């Protein structure tokens, strides 16, 4: 197979014919729905034919109090028809994260009663919620001229709006190009390296995205408030924040299956346009308007958290690197197309294999399993201080340095843990044997 991360070609051969198709995404969506109190939320098939929102999946979770007609109206008020839907339900306190596109208020301050009703339906009596707009205030204000905008306090009195500034599109792409360039430049001296790293702004983006995700998680977990997150389209920075907040809050999303489900839900089903964003990667001369390493930034953020909590993730760094590769070039259909609707039209389920079905085979899974993993049911709060964030060498210095010694260290770590497990098994076996022998003895002796 041909994979072209950072312009290098690797060829791997595998026999895919034995792979069976399965689509965890839809299941996950239904799982979530069933786990949520029926009284408050429902699964809506309003988007069955992708008519209401082309970038949404056919089934979405919405407040029960809102009917499909209202959803259709709300869709006309949100960018790309992306009406607010449930992203994450925090079991601990019943609070939720929702995501959407920007409201189309325009310059004359249009409002939409159904929209207000929809998001208010997620609030408990007397409680306030937070709207996290991933754009700075001035950008959000400028968006009004193009028909976009943000939620006015007057119309959403129960919501507090917070503006963050996560960069988008070509700014991120420029960062990536600069970063990869300086990683490849072996001639510079020490100081130039640090200033180039700084000038790429890559770590600044990481810090901003992580900070926003932590803020969302904090609102949900510590403040006990529900949150609506959006930027402009709600397909990029929005998804970075919703998915990272879940990594922080939800232990299951730190397992392999849970993380796969998270990507399926929050990236694929949620309509992140992989085709547009991940067409070229870092080495492209022509300016690609839609190219942007949004997903790679997300993976990098996950890696940063993984580095700070090395025992709390079921997967290892290789898993993240594998996902990066497949997002840019893959023999599987999983990351093809820009949304569910396109994937359906392409009949990808019939024509291609799912990445997950390959990854989840035991032989592959063992490569991606973190030997240090110990289920940690707590919320994990990463540090976002610059001192705590690092360049992801496994991705960016992968072809520029030998990882021999680090690989050896990893192997040694696996050996230590494997040996421990073997001993444990042996000891348990012997204990059982002894216990059996002793009871036999007891029986013999007692008369």
């Amino acid at each position, binding site marked *: 197979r041909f994979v072209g991360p950072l312009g290098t070609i690797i060829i791997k051969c595998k026999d895919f014919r034995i792979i069976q198709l399965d689509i965890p995404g839809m299941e996950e969506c239904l799982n979530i729905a069933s786990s949520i109190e029926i009284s408050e939320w429902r699964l809506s098939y309003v988007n069955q034919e992708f008519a209401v929102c082309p970038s949404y999946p056919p089934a979405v979770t919405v407040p029960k109090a809102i009917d499909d007609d209202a959803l259709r109206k709300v869709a006309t008020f949100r960018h790309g028809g992306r009406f607010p839907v449930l992203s994450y339900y925090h079991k601990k306190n019943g609070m939720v994260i929702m995501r959407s596109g920007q409201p189309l208020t325009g310059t004359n301050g249009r409002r939409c009663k159904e929209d207000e009703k929809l998001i208010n339906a997620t609030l408990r009596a007397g409680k306030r919620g937070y709207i996290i707009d991933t754009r700075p205030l001035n950008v959000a204000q400028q968006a009004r001229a193009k028909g976009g905008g943000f939620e006015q306090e007057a119309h959403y009195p129960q919501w507090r709006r917070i503006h963050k500034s996560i960069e988008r599109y070509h700014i991120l792409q420029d960062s990536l190009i600069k970063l990869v360039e300086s990683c490849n430049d072996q001639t510079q001296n020490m100081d130039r390296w640090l200033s180039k790293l700084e000038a790429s702004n890559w770590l600044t983006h990481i810090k901003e995205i992580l900070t926003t995700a932590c803020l969302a998680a904090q609102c949900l977990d510590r403040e006990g408030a529900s949150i609506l997150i959006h930027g402009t389209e709600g397909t990029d920075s929005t998804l970075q924040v919703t998915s990272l907040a879940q990594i922080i809050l939800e232990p299951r999303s730190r397992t392999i299956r849970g993380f796969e489900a998270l990507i399926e839900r929050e990236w694929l089903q949620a309509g992140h346009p992989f085709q547009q964003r991940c067409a070229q990667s870092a080495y492209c001369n022509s300016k690609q308007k839609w190219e942007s390493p949004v997903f790679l930034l997300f993976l990098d953020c996950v890696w940063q958290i993984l580095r700070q909590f090395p025992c709390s993730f079921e997967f290892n760094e290789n898993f993240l690197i594998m996902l990066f590769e497949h997002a840019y070039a893959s023999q599987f259909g999983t990351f093809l197309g820009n949304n569910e609707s396109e994937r359906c039209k392409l009949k990808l389920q019939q024509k291609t294999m799912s990445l997950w079905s390959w990854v989840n085979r035991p032989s592959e899974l063992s490569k991606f399993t973190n030997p240090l993993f110990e289920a940690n049911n707590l919320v994990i709060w990463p540090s976002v201080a*610059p001192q705590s964030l690092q360049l992801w060498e496994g991705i960016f210095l992968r072809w520029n340095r030998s990882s021999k010694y680090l690989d050896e260290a990893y192997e040694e770590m696996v050996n230590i843990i494997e040996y*421990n497990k073997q001993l444990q098994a042996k000891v348990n076996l012997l204990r059982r044997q002894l216990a059996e022998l002793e009871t036999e003895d007891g029986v013999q002796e007692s008369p």
Partner: protein
Amino acid sequence: MEHVENVRLVDRISSKKAALGTLYLTATHVIFVETAPDARKETWILHSQIATIEKQATTATGCPLLIRCKNFQLLQLVIPQERDCHDVYISLIRLARPVKYEELYCFSFNPKLDREEREQGWMLIDLSEEYKRMGLPNNYWQLSDVNREYRVCDSYPTELYVPKSATAHIIVGSSKFRSRRRFPALSYYYKDNHASICRSSQPLSGFSARCLEDEQMLQAIRKANPGSDFIYVVDTRPKLNAMANRAAGKGYENEDNYSNIKFQFIGIENIHVMRNSLQKMLEVCELKSPSMSDFLWGLENSGWLRHIKAIMDAGVFIAKAVSEEGASVLVHCSDGWDRTAQGCSVASLLLDPHYRTLKGFMVLIEKDWISFGHKFTHRYGNLDGDPREISPVIDQFLECVWQLMEQFPCAFEFNERFLIHIQHHIYSCQFGNFLCNSQKERQELKIQERTYSLWAHLWKNRADYLNPLFRADHSQTWGVLHLPTAPCNFMYKFWNGMYNRFEKGLQPRQSVTDYLMAVKEETQQLEEELEALEERLEKIQKVQLSRTKVRSKQSEPSKHSGFSTSDNSTANTPQDYSGNVKSFPSRSPSQGDEDSALILTQDNLKSSDPDLSANSDQESGVEDLSCRSPSGGECVPSEDSGKDRDSDEAVFLTA
């Protein structure tokens, strides 16, 4: 004992409310005891750790006092009364700058060991053994007594190895031509190919002076290595500095005057540049919620990592010359006790796996730093003195080791904590090892009779300092460590674990090292248990066998029952043990109460164990993690975090 009440200790990183407590000044420590009834947390700071004390402008809440420590702890106190603050300030200035060695903590520190134990402690590291290990003396090198009673050079040790062909006449002649008479002497001998690393100070060459004996001395070093017809002379200074020295009658070797030398500058900056560089880097660490750019710019502007790289370059150059070209190297800088020590010790570490073990590393520091007269007292400001003499020379060496550990995770027997604790004790003056500026001074002060050795203390607690990934039979462990030749700048990283080590919120929340150490400990228990179980199984099987043979043997049942009670006690271990299993994952992630190690707690002090107390470690589990985690709400950049709900809210609202 002086004390001030109602003092507040400000947490710089988190927005947590300042802790209220009482400040005590003892003869040896500053102690802050929190008054909160539930947790009377104590913070102990040794006077010798205090680097600077800064009294800031009085505010409505009181008078702030900023104490910066040499181990990179930063304490911000607010004292209600200006007068009290001034008193504390004056007292601390006096206490932090002792004028006599006798005032230092090591002369009063008593770990309750008897005399014999103390003497044994000092004998743990033996340099004559070390030279034997290198394969000396041999046909080319001999032990010289030319410096007995420090007659030739008072900053050198008395036991020195020199080439066999270097007569006393040559040595003395050469010493007169070298700064502070620090003549070329052996630092490391590479058995495999007879090449050696020698060290000295700069020659007093000025613009044209020569010295026959010095030239003969270098020739003798060359002849001591039959495998090569030249030697390298490495001047670790920048060329400009070396040239400037010529005007003062010092300088560097002229290749024309010395036969068969290859001369090389490396360009490590002097102690003043290094001091300022560290200062700048620490200022970056002190920034309150810096942006990524602030941090990277600051780090770059400090030049710190560039200096670390220069030192590594020196070490790599020397190690390559020795191992790959088989050429001997003479290393010097100006006086030959700072940059020379750095270059030689980094090279030795790269060349010889022994120095990458726990004991070997102690030997290395003992050899290249302590015995060769690195001026510990001056560089680390143990006594009141010229602040221009202070410089983080050995700190930089320790950082080089850490950078290597990051590159070669299996090659070192010790872990990061070992380096951090050595750094701490270089400044703590709790042990006598790093006192004074030379071996001669230490002898005069009778250090070994009056103080204790750090090495014995670290050795006793070695379990805490082991790198779980180290395996003596691992290929990474053997031989020379080869760093990539290309200038891989990204290899050098900011050492968060050292410079921010008191800011727990900035450290990874789970430690792989601690986790693996716990696993290994468990493995060991399992191995023991397995053995015991197998033994028992065998016995029972024998008993059963014998019983089937001789069915009615009186003693048998009783014997067996006796056995089974003893068994029960072992059978209990598994249960305890599985309890352990449950507790270890929770214990391991907690980065541990390392600060309880370094901020001395009273109990520790009593038990004379200022370092890690394993017990406290075990108690901090998931709960600890959970309560610490929210403080990681540095999510909000403006005001970092809060442990309690209220402050979170506050933080969040300012966002």
